[in-house]
């Protein structure tokens, strides 16, 4: 889902991971330092604060595209279940995994509604 030509930073950001008990209250938005472009369903992201760049596959791109307009993680989960032929539990696993990676990389920010 999430490819990067650079190694992940190893610092521990566990305290910033999303809280699974408040998915319907957790809003996501891209970091202001991130520039992204969608290319044939995949998304290339450039973190202007680090110069690192990343590519999201189609599922990751749908998630990224919906991290706007005050969407909560539950809202995005509903989109994935609607758009992809996938079990809800699997969709949530993939969603949470990617969102945590994006938060750890500083590409995505979360806030409580």
């Amino acid at each position, binding site marked *: 889902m999430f490819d990067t*030509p650079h190694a992940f930073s190893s610092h521990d950001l566990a305290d910033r991971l999303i809280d699974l008990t408040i998915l319907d209250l957790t809003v996501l938005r891209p970091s202001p330092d991130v520039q992204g*472009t969608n*290319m044939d369903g*995949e998304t*290339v992201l*450039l973190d202007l604060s680090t110069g690192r*760049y990343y*590519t999201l596959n189609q599922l990751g791109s749908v998630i990224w595209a919906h991290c706007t307009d005050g969407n909560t993680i539950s809202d995005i989960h509903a989109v994935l279940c609607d758009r992809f032929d996938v079990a809800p539990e699997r969709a949530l696993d993939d969603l949470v995994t990617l969102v945590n990676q994006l938060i750890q990389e500083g590409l995505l920010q979360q806030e409580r509604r």
Partner: protein
Amino acid sequence: MTSCVVNQPMTEYLFSLYGKSVRYVTTSSFLVSPVQELLKYFRRDSLDESASLTLWFHAVQSRADIPLVMSPSARRLSSGTGAELGDRAETGLPYEVIHDSGRLIADFFNTGVLVIDGVQGRADGYLIRPETMPASLIEYLFHLVLIELLRHRGLYTIHATALEKNGRGVLIPGNSGRGKTTSFISLLRSGYRYLSDDHPLLRDAGDHVDLLPFPIKINVTEDTIAFFPELRNAPDHLLHPGFPKRAFYAEELYSTAIGEHCRPSLVMFPHVVDAPHSHLEPLSKSRALELLLPQALLVYDQDVARREFQVLAKLVQQVDCYRLHFGRDILDLPKLITPLLEEMR
């Protein structure tokens, strides 16, 4: 700080690059000809307007003569051997890039220091004993400064060779050893027009990106020369001696002219394969952009980098992208590429 850089006579040279007027001022005769050579196609006797970019290059005798004062808020952006900045011999220099109060400072330690103010359009280079430097090093340092200033004015360079045929541009990005120059010469000798060996410029033209010529000497290794009979047999006054690369002007060896600015149509990323025939493998747009970014984008100024990223994305959207598996049929490459270009007409 008292410095020996201030009291030397100055000479001034004028250039114009795609509407961006450039004034170059230097205090050293050793710093003239490499710059004149690099920008020989862009020289002007006068400018219609005041220069939008001004570059000063000063000769100093030692590092202590460089009047560089950094503020406490200066922060290091990157450092390394220079390999990230290009693939010429000169780029093996250790360097450090520092951001300080809106200025970019490229410190090449015992070679010199470049101070670039992109917003003001002014740069100062302090080169330590330039009389001892090869011309290619002076040219390289000047080019680094120039491209950083041009980025702030909407002209972006990319580490690629570039050609044009019938108004369509071909870009061949990549590092040394991947077949970039060899594939480029194979097309050049078959009648493609020359745009640049390594430094073409890109400009956002609204609904598309323009590819602009930046013609310079073409640098070739002995391995590349061996593939082409006209290079193997070229006399020294056309194929200038040098190490590790020799150099020639496209129009002196081939019946080609400098190409016009054009719309890029094809981007191919070469790599050499041990196979009798070359072939092209289509690349997804996202993969192509991912491969292109390290050939173009160094993030020093966020606003500039944001615009440059958008230009690169627009470029990828408008071209067909391939990986070129470059086999042993080097001289036959035009037979593979030209029909593709003609299909796009």
